[in-house]
């Protein structure tokens, strides 16, 4: 159960984080109450859900963020950019933790430390907005069960102090002395220390085995200080410490045997009257007088001592609770605490029926009484009484017979609500008395680390549609599938596509060997059928892997915002075509290059507001991120309206670093020149920038994109901006190729790269500056002989009277590649070269042909 639950939590948490993050960015642009609600709800849900797991640092951090948002929502705190930064950073940290949960099913070891740092920062803004808010933020945790063992004086001092209280325990590591820790000193120095007790640990070895230089102690202490201050103080031993912020109420622990003397009833009546009239001095005197006549060890005596001490200052309701603890007329602690755990002592005492259920039923009955005390709108009253009736009837089978009879009798008089309430309360004595010493066993949270969990697909968030679902609309039925399964399916589909090529080869063989044209044709027909099915299968499987580009784009609003803040520039991000889909692997290969390109555009492209105004542009720049599909490719463009790239600067630089000769430089068009920024080792920005490295990143970008089977190029207009275009194949699994022959060898060329194939008569090939060219529809196209590029001997025999030319697109240029001939077209799986061959330049990989031969597939951009 646990791991399935965690596997469910991880994508949900990511989606909530994403929603909160993008909400914050939107909120910064324009304030909207709905956006704020949305963010708050996301953070709130995350906090509530994270409580199901044993990941306290995460819950605490999200809790602090939620508290901050509460203040913002209440209008008590303005959402300054620094606060947005703080919240975003915290969400990022939580995101990292979620990643860690996914990979190792536990938070990182430093999570507690990292959490306390962030929480201090978040609480800092809270305290600035109002101390009351900060105090309320820590007043909700369950009190540890050893609290009652602390000296009563310490607890009384704490109750009166009015500052936030933390009960904490500390079990120093056995070997702590060897690491230079001084536990006693650390405890003594704790901020706001009110009381401490030292005891041996639960498990101490027998004396003859006990190593005296190891620590076997446990400290339990109470401090009047904010939890953050304590976690800061104890940060180096955070793994050995348990902090529990507590409310002053939790300190009202009255230990000792019960004394059932009638005198308490009289005292109760009088004390209530004194509290109500504000006669605090008399209350104190009455308590002192009663103390004089009863034994000091009873729990009533403890309550009386407290009343005597607190009478002059305490709030009336606190005193009422203490009085109630003496005469037993009301619970000494809120009923919710009674719900927290069935006390074993009472459970053991009850005879017959299932004791925990009896206890539970009593607590539920007490809640009904409390509910009936709360005033309600008239319209709801009848319904509420009906529901109470149902609940009471359902509790009856779990109760002792006498109690059930009393309740049944009270229910039989439906008009008499007061009587029902009184009867309901009768069970409270046992419930509340036992609740006075709460025994909150550690909440049994599902352990986070057990058996390995199934890997998760980072599929589109299924909950998004669900949360937005209105009445009636059925949520889209989603299936979470392990990505490895889809990959396996994809591989089989691809293998099938390749294997079917064998049939075409077989048909040819049948015709050659047996001379049966009929049989060959039949095989070809069968091939066509299998071909169609294989293609449908491949398209279908591919569709599973297709993801919208928005998966990659969604991180950019944040990136642009943060980068702009760092650079002191202003830019608006425009995203277009985020619904365009591409294969998951392709998108993943795109993610890093895209970050680099966006950072480059922001860092080097967009000018400062002052520069822009001086150039007659709006102070705010625009960065356009767009995606679209063209044939079998995804085209991604990163365009800015910044200062553009100066071809003269690039030209000079390229010549200076020896990238091109001055002669070459003179021949190159400005469009070609600017694309030199992709050359290895080129940098237009002289100084190192903290954001985009040294500007050498563009060659890395080109390498990454080419590795994924795509290409990248740049267009720029000086003073008007630049546009980087990335072209990637829709999928990387299957490549359509055409085989060509050169120097007696066969090679594959990806069809994507081939614009067209033409036969060029020898007479139309001209030499221009030592380079062969030909004219294709008024465009001069340079020619490259493939055999030369590959270092092969040219084909022997008489030169043909026309050349077979493959016109290839390399970037935005067209180049004619002269080959000896074209062979068939087919679909193959291109496997990258590995081992010794991995270093070969000019090949994107190998493909297995239908007849078992291995084909080298060319990578034209590398080759030319």
């Amino acid at each position, binding site marked *: 159960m646990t791991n399935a639950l965690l596997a469910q939590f991880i994508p949900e948490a990511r989606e909530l984080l994403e929603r909160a993050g993008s909400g914050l960015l939107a909120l910064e642009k324009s304030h909207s109450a709905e956006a704020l609600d949305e963010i708050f709800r996301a953070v709130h849900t995350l906090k509530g859900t994270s409580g199901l797991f044993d990941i306290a640092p995460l819950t605490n951090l999200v809790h602090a963020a939620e508290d901050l948002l509460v203040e913002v929502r209440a209008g008590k705190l303005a959402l300054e950019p620094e606060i947005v930064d703080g919240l975003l950073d915290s969400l990022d940290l939580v995101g990292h933790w979620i990643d860690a949960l996914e990979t190792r099913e536990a938070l990182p070891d430093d999570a507690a430390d990292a959490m306390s740092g962030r929480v201090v920062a978040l609480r800092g803004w809270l305290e600035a907005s109002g101390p009351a808010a900060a105090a309320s933020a820590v007043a909700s945790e369950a009190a540890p069960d050893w609290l009652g063992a602390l000296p009563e004086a310490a607890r009384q001092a704490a109750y009166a102090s009015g500052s936030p209280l933390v009960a904490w325990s500390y079990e120093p590591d056995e070997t702590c002395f060897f690491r230079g820790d001084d536990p006693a000193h650390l405890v003594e120095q704790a901020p706001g220390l009110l009381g401490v007790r030292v005891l041996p640990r639960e498990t101490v070895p027998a004396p003859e085995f006990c190593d005296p230089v190891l620590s076997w102690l446990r400290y339990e202490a109470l401090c009047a200080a904010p939890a953050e201050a304590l976690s800061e103080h104890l940060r180096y031993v955070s793994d050995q410490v348990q902090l529990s912020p507590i409310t002053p109420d939790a300190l009202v622990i009255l230990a000792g045997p019960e004394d059932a003397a009638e005198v308490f009833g009289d005292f109760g009546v009088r004390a209530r009257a004194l509290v109500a009239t504000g006669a605090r001095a008399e209350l104190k005197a009455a308590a002192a007088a009663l103390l004089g006549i009863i034994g000091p060890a009873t729990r009533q005596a403890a309550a009386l001592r407290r009343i005597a001490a607190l009478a002059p200052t305490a709030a009336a309701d606190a005193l009422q609770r203490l009085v109630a603890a003496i005469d037993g007329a009301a619970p000494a602690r*809120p009923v919710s605490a009674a719900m927290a755990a069935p006390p074993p002592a009472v459970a053991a005492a009850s005879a017959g029926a299932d004791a925990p*259920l009896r206890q539970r039923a009593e607590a539920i009955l007490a809640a009904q009484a*409390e509910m009936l005390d*709360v005033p309600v709108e008239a319209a*709801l009253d009848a319904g509420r009484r009906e529901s109470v009736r149902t*609940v009471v009837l*359902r509790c009856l089978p779990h109760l002792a017979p006498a109690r059930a009879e009393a309740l049944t009798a009270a229910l039989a008089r439906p008009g008499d609500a007061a009587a029902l309430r009184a009867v309901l309360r009768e069970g409270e004595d046992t419930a509340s008395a036992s609740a006075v010493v709460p025994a909150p066993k550690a909440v*049994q949270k599902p352990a986070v680390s057990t058996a390995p969990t199934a890997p998760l697909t980072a599929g589109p968030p299924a909950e998004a549609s669900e949360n937005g*679902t209105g009445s009636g609309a059925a949520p889209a039925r989603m299936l979470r599938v392990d990505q490895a399964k889809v990959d396996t399916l994809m591989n089989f589909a691809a293998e099938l596509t390749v294997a079917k090529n064998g049939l075409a080869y077989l048909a040819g063989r049948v015709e050659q060997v047996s001379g049966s044209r009929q049989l060959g044709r039949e095989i070809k027909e069968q091939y066509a059928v299998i071909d169609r099915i294989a293609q449908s299968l491949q398209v279908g499987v591919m569709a599973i892997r297709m993801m919208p580009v928005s998966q990659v784009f969604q991180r950019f609003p944040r990136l642009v915002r943060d980068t702009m803040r760092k650079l002191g520039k202003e830019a608006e991000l425009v995203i277009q075509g985020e619904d365009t889909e591409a294969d998951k692997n392709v998108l993943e290969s795109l993610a890093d290059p895209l970050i680099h390109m966006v950072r480059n555009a922001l860092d080097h492209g967009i000018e400062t507001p002052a520069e822009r105004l001086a150039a007659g542009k709006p102070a705010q720049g625009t960065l356009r991120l767009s995606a679209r599909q063209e044939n079998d490719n995804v085209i991604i463009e990163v365009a800015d309206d910044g200062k553009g790239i100066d071809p003269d600067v690039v030209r000079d630089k390229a010549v200076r670093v020896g990238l091109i000769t001055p002669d070459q430089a003179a021949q190159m068009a400005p469009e070609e020149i600017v694309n030199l920024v992709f050359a290895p080792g080129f940098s237009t920005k002289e100084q190192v920038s903290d954001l985009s490295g040294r500007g050498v990143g563009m060659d890395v970008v080109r390498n990454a994109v080419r590795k994924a089977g795509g290409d990248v190029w740049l267009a720029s207009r000086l003073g008007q901006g630049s546009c980087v275009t990335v072209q990637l194949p829709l999928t990387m699994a299957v490549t359509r190729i055409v085989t060509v022959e050169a120097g007696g060898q066969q090679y594959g060329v990806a069809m994507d790269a081939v614009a067209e194939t033409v036969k060029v008569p020898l007479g139309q090939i001209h030499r221009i500056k030592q380079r062969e060219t030909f004219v294709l529809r008024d465009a001069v196209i340079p020619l490259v002989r493939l055999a030369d590029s590959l270092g092969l001997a040219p084909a022997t025999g008489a030169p043909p009277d026309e050349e077979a030319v493959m016109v290839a697109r390399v970037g935005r240029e067209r180049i004619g590649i002269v080959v000896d001939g074209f062979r068939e077209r087919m679909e193959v799986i291109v496997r990258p070269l590995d081992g010794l061959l991995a270093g070969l330049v000019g090949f994107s990989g190998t493909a297995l042909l239908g007849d078992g031969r291995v084909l080298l597939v060319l990578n034209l951009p590398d080759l030319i």
Partner: protein
Amino acid sequence: MARILVVDDATTVRMYYRDVLEEAGFTVEEAVNGFEGLEKAVAESFDLILVDVNMPKMDGYAFLRQGRTMPELQAVPAVMISTESAAQDRERAYAAGANLYLVKPVRPEVLTEVATVMAGVVP
């Protein structure tokens, strides 16, 4: 077989309740907000409703208030489960018509006991 409706916008939380309650032999239906909860609660009958506080479209308070005025729902016991433990939150829940207020995270055995008693499972 006692039937329980779980109304919470967090998928993981619903899954947790479902795991625990189905293990204990209950039949569990889910709704992602108060609106859907009302629709399901009216269309089918339930022995117990567990409802979250903060949800989009219709929150837990509105869900309870609406439910207590509807003949089909007014007698059905309802437990509100929240992350807040302050007394005023509990009172708000009672004022809206909750029969019990629990604070997240609810331990599996507490959830099972509460469901057993309030959904009317006779021992």
